[in-house]
């Protein structure tokens, strides 16, 4: 299930399940900088799909291209079967979108907000709007500009969910929210999964929430898609090994290890995080002169951080970099 190194990016079988989002070689340049490079993935209907990556890795750009808000430099994408650049109003009515800034018009009152939005959608469930605004304790007469961040998120969520969209696209929805608001957001996402054919595509940095709520994840590493799989597959693919050494012995410099994500030395031990280590790699580990080689379980967060961080050997924060440079050797 792991792709070869020349990589025709994860052909996620579009024949398998109905895909609500599909991209083919989606690429976007900003001047000379590639924000998104050759992104090919598909999102199955009914799933909760988390789109992960560090800040600036291209997640928001991708989402904007998916929704036809930005033109790709190259490549294409389809949403609910329609080309992203030519989304008809009927399709837009079925796609809910909430940006990370929870955009609203400041001079609206909460009630006006609902009224304005309801004019646009053929299907508007005002009970949902009311229920969510009540859940967040929003005064119908309060102006959007006066609400707190969490309350604005609640209002934004209300107008996004009231049209009961088939596909919900959320760009870092929990950004800036207090823990209570975040919990409400999580609950709303699980609420949406009540509809068997409703799909959620969201990006987030809150790895614990992602672990709770996502079926699948896709990881953008500096504009390139490097993972697209279920959470379980990811967990089982990212493994951590600890090599114990005698205090006297100096661990040797690392050879090139296929799939090495992260290496960390400390007193008498070398901790390696490796993606999809095969037999050969595991054999190599035993040949590094360690007293014991032990595999340790990794939490989803640590696996993700290891995956997203810089590849190769790392020290702690501002550790003695000259030492690291000599150790890095072949990395």
């Amino acid at each position, binding site marked *: 299930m792991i792709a070869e190194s020349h990589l025709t990016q994860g052909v996620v079988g579009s024949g398998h399940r109905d895909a609500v989002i599909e991209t083919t070689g989606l690429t976007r340049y900003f001047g000379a900088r590639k924000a998104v490079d050759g992104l090919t993935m598909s999102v199955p209907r009914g799933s*909760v799909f988390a789109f992960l990556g560090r800040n600036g890795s291209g997640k928001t750009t991708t989402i904007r291209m998916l929704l036809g808000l930005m033109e790709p430099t190259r490549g294409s994408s389809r949403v609910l079967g329609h080309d992203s650049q030519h989304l008809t109003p009927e399709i837009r009515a079925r796609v809910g979108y909430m940006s990370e800034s929870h955009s609203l018009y400041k001079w609206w009152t909460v009630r006006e907000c609902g009224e304005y939005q309801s004019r646009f959608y053929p299907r508007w469930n005002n009970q949902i709007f009311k229920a969510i605004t009540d859940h967040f304790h929003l005064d119908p007469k309060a102006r959007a500009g006066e609400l707190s961040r969490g309350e604005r998120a609640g209002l934004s969520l209300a107008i996004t969910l009231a049209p009961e969209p088939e596909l919900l696209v959320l760009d870092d929805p929990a950004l800036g929210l207090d823990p209570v608001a975040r*919990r409400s957001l*999580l*609950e709303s996402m*699980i*609420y949406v*999964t*009540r509809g068997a054919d409703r799909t959620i595509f969201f990006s987030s940095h809150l*790895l*614990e*929430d992602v*672990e*709770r*709520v*996502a*079926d699948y994840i896709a990881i953008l590493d500096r504009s390139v898609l490097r993972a697209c799989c279920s*959470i*379980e597959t990811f*967990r089982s693919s990212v493994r951590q090994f600890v090599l114990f050494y005698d205090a006297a012995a100096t661990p040797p410099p690392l050879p090139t290890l296929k799939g090495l994500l992260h290496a960390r030395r400390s007193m008498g031990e070398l901790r390696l995080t490796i993606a999809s280590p095969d037999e050969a790699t595991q054999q190599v580990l035993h040949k590094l002169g360690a007293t014991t080689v032990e595999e*340790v*379980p*990794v*939490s*989803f*967060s640590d696996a993700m951080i290891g995956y997203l961080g810089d590849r190769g050997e790392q020290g702690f924060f501002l550790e003695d970099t000259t030492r690291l440079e000599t150790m890095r050797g072949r990395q």
Partner: protein
Amino acid sequence: MPLTISIHAGSNVSIYRQIVEQVCAAVFSGRIRDDEPLPSVRSLAEELLVNPNTVLRAYGELSREGIIESRPGRGMFTSKRRQIYSKAERTKRIDRSVTSLVTEAFTLGFTAKEIVDQVSERAHELDPNLKGRA
């Protein structure tokens, strides 16, 4: 019903695994008796705030292990206790925990006799057959 499951995200143990283990522990410790109904997938998912598919997976594994079973139209129930494992299998399973326990105890400086005493005491304390009520 005294089935209280609490899961922690960010643990070394995946969420579905935590559900499985906690249901197992509840069953084996007698906190749930045989033939008790379990919460539906959806209600447990919403209570634990996890993806229903995760709960579904946990229930699936528990079902495969014979700890719970599906009654058509009525949901999931704990199954009547049946020995579905052979003795060899059961021994193998318990051996893992025992090895871990003993190794740790030795590391902590206990003697073999102290270990045996400790285990014996605890086993008597937790014996479900001795409790009987719930």
